């Protein structure tokens, strides 16, 4: 019955990594969930959470966007920025195009993808501040 405890998660991140600990907490939670064999269907960045995708010009381990990219590469995570939140903050053009600002592994999506993933998921968690 151990198999029944493997769960599918959707994670929503609402906070900029520069102003709150919430995005870092989400990162640690996801690492632990993956290590315990769970599936992360979607990491959805909303509100100021879209700032997680913006590559800092300060290189180094403090840059969370780089850690997100590495985690996505290793585990095939789907990191989705909400298009309207990203447009509002000027990270994505009016046409919905990435303006070359996003770290590798992030893609642009819509609220519909979030709703869809929530239907398939066992657990939905929001990290906010």
């Amino acid at each position, binding site marked *: 019955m151990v198999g029944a405890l493997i769960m599918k998660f959707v994670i929503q991140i*609402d906070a900029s990594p520069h102003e709150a600990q919430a995005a870092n907490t989400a990162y640690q939670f996801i690492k632990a969930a993956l290590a315990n064999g769970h599936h992360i269907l979607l990491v959805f960045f909303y509100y100021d959470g879209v700032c997680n995708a913006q590559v800092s010009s300060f290189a180094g381990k403090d840059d969370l966007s780089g850690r997100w990219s590495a985690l996505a590469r290793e585990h095939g995570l789907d990191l989705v920025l909400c298009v*309207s939140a990203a447009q509002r903050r000027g990270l994505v053009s009016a046409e919905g195009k990435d303006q070359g600002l996003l770290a590798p592994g992030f893609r642009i999506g819509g*609220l519909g993808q*979030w*709703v869809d993933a929530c*239907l398939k998921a066992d657990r939905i968690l*929001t990290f906010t501040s």
Partner: protein
Amino acid sequence: MNHSKCFVFVVRQPPFRGDRTVELVDQLLAVAAFDHPVDVLFLDDGVWQLQAAHVLEGAGLRPLAPLLRTLEFYDVREVAAEHESLAERALSPDGLVLPVRLLARSEVPAWIAGHDVAVGCG
């Protein structure tokens, strides 16, 4: 597996925190647009969102009442507010920008637990 789920959004924050209310309503309406039952609960300072404001010129703020009234027109199932949160703020349920179902504080845990997905509450 892809059955319908019932969502609840819990709003605890006061108005005019940048675009947060607009983005909250966007997310809520996205759920409704996909034909899933969605409820919203206003708690604590969140109930201030329901207070009508008539003068916004000069303040550079976006009026929230028309935005929140869209909850009625789209298929949002229930707009609820906690009785005690309103009472502590001397707000009458009659003066709000849209009609709400009143929940007593003691009813809130079970009401929230009646949903499949909870979002919020900030």
